[in-house]
């Protein structure tokens, strides 16, 4: 059955106008003192028992950050952020890394249970409990989850990672999947070699801030020739008031390796704005492939535009080896402000970068998102499919850069940017930059802007669908090319999100 259908079925079951992930989990937490200075950085590093070299790395980033200015070129407007008026570290109190799920605070587990689907935690967490013994549940799950099989989950709650599932099984395959704080202890050689090698500490204001204060995140290393046996997933949740979340993700696919990774995000409803400044670095060596998918559903603010997450994220993949491939797929429905450009550096000859994006804005949301494809190697190929949907009073901008350097002979890019407007008070903007320094480069760009026409809605309604069901169907048709890039189980979740985020936008 086409995934599109499932959405429409699900739309009917969803409450209207509710950010359903907006609950707060009542757990006492331990925070760093409010504000940001060298001591904050030392505090965070100390909490993690980090080695000196890691602290030095952070401090260097912090010193550089103090000389930097917040970027203003994006088409987003927000009140000035007071970086001293926030907490940079929050952990559930008396947090010690759990040895097994039995050690995880049940309140936390209940939170993840409430959050529901992207993780399918219930089964997975249960699967972990039965680790080591062949469990009936595992078998059922395999069937239930179709082609891509099980999902290993690392869940990050505020600043710390609370549970990583399927660790043992991954270990047998040689795959390292753990909180980055643990990786710093256990695999310093890999961290030293790769951390900051794609997004240097000096990269940009938000990435530099992240380098100084990142608290946790995920680390993945897939060794030579290994195809990671399951989907890897991280689930981020901001719970604590007034905290920023600064997670750091580093994924390395060694020669000939393959990994598919998904991150999902939610946050409670809060009146104030909360900052999320993550950094994700991907490294693909010769013939390796990394598929990175995001379903982002941070709290977007209320109907008047109050509150919501500021999502300032730097994501970049480096196709370092020949014939390597990195593909970004994102479904962005949340956040008050999104500032995000998952990019690919196509360094290896014949490497390939892909960017598939669905960005939905409603209410007063502002989205400025897109990608950069930097062609350095010969015969490198990139493909960009971006679908922006604006409703309410939102503004949605696609901003992209495609560039071919002098030695990038035979570089090719195809870009397709489509915008869909719902209502007449929103805006869609497309800002493509293209730059070819090699005359053999071939860049193609297609763009369109359309409105959901009344004819289309009436046609669907005359067949029995409500205005909302009709909108969901039309929108699903619009984003289908991108949804197909997501792993099946997440495609369904993404569709549900799309419907929720467009509720109340018609009629």
């Amino acid at each position: 059955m086409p995934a599109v259908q499932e959405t429409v079925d699900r739309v009917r079951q969803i409450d209207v106008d509710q950010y359903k992930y907006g609950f707060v989990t009542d757990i006492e937490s331990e925070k760093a003192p409010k504000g940001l200075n060298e001591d904050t950085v030392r505090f965070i590093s100390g909490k993690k028992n980090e080695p000196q070299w890691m602290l030095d790395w952070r401090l260097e980033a912090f010193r550089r950050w103090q000389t930097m200015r917040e970027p203003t070129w994006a088409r987003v407007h927000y009140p000035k952020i007071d970086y001293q008026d926030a907490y940079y570290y929050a952990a559930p109190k008396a947090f010690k890394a759990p040895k097994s799920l039995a050690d995880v605070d049940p309140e936390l587990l209940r939170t993840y249970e409430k959050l529901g689907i992207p993780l399918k935690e219930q089964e997975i967490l249960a699967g972990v409990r039965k680790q080591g013994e062949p469990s009936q549940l595992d078998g059922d799950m395999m069937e239930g989850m179709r082609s891509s099989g099980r999902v290993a989950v690392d869940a990050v709650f505020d600043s710390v990672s609370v549970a990583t599932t399927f660790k043992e099984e991954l270990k047998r395959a040689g795959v390292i999947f753990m909180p980055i704080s643990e990786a710093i202890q256990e695999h310093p050689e890999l961290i030293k070699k790769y951390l900051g090698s794609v997004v240097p500490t000096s990269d940009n204001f938000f990435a530099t801030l992240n380098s100084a204060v990142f608290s946790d995140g995920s680390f993945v290393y897939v060794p030579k020739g290994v195809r990671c046996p399951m989907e890897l997933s991280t689930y981020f949740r901001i719970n604590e008031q007034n905290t920023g979340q600064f997670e750091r993700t580093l994924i390395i696919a060694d020669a000939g390796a393959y990994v598919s990774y998904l991150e999902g995000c939610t946050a409670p409803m809060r009146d104030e704005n909360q900052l999320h400044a993550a950094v994700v670095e991907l490294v693909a060596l010769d013939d390796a492939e990394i598929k990175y998918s995001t379903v982002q559903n941070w709290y977007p603010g209320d109907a008047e535009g109050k509150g919501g997450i500021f999502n300032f994220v730097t994501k970049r993949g480096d196709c370092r080896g020949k014939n390597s491939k990195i593909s970004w797929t994102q479904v962005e429905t949340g956040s008050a402000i999104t500032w995000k450009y998952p990019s690919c550096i196509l360094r290896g000859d014949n490497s390939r970068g892909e960017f598939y994006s669905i960005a939905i804005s409603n209410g007063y949301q502002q989205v400025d998102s897109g990608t950069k494809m930097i062609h350095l190697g010969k015969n490198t190929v990139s493909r960009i499919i971006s679908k922006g949907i604006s409703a309410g009073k939102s503004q949605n901008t696609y901003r992209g850069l495609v560039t071919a350097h002098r030695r990038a002979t035979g570089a090719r890019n195809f870009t397709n940017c489509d915008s869909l407007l719902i209502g007449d008070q929103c805006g869609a903007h497309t800002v493509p930059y293209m730059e070819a320094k090699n005359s053999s480069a071939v860049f193609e760009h297609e763009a369109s802007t359309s409105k959901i026409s009344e004819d289309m809605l009436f046609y669907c309604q005359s067949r029995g669908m409500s205005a909302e069901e009709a909108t969901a169907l039309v929108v699903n048709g619009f984003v289908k090319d991108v949804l197909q890039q997501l792993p099946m189980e997440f495609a369904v979740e993404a569709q549900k999100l799309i419907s929720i985020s467009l509720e109340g936008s018609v009629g």
Partner: protein
Amino acid sequence: MSLLEIKNLHVEIEDEGKKILNGLTLTIEKGQVAAIMGPNGSGKSTLAYVLAGRPGYAVTEGDILLDGESILEMEPNERAAKGVFLAFQYPVEVPGVATMTFLRTALNAQRKLRGEAEVSTPEFIKLVRDTSDKLGISQDMLRRGVNVGFSGGEKKRAEILQMAILQPRIAVLDETDSGLDIDALRIVSEGVNRLRSPERSMIVITHYQRLLNYIVPDVVHVMAKGRVVRTGGKELALELEAKGYAQYTDEAA
């Protein structure tokens, strides 16, 4: 009780205030196939849209009763669930939504409004396969976006497929013959005739008598200037073909 009663209906286009229907009265009996003929601009398509509940038209006077119940305040989807179906003169394209998905969504939406259970997948697939085979609609067409890249004839056949799946009680066919060649006309007409039943009424809107050779009506109404000006048997269509509409446009004036 008649299935559909249209009483003294006055309709104008919203915003423009242009009056299209001027006191139209029409009754459709259960199981009846009624042809509505008339010149361009007589209000035939407006009548079809108003029956289906298209926004943009203001009913200033009169009523439309289905089983004695007014449908004027109902949303288009509620009317659909009550059994009103409009085969569009110009079917709309819905890119990226497979015809199969569209049909299933529509059918289940209607069933839900009626408080019925959703149709099961195997049942649904069988229903669509059987019906589409008879209409010469390929599996490939069912997988393509609704009406996207369909020829004129394919679009009309797809409308009849939708009608067959949704099983309406009153189907309005708005110039279903326009743009069809003889072969397509035959296939479409056969599709419509298969759906004739004592439980289902149809309003067949057309300019030309030709269609009525294939879909033989029980009654023919002539519309001019926004109302029904003459009613007769199927032979009335032949008379119109011979004499044209001029007399009615003059009479109505």
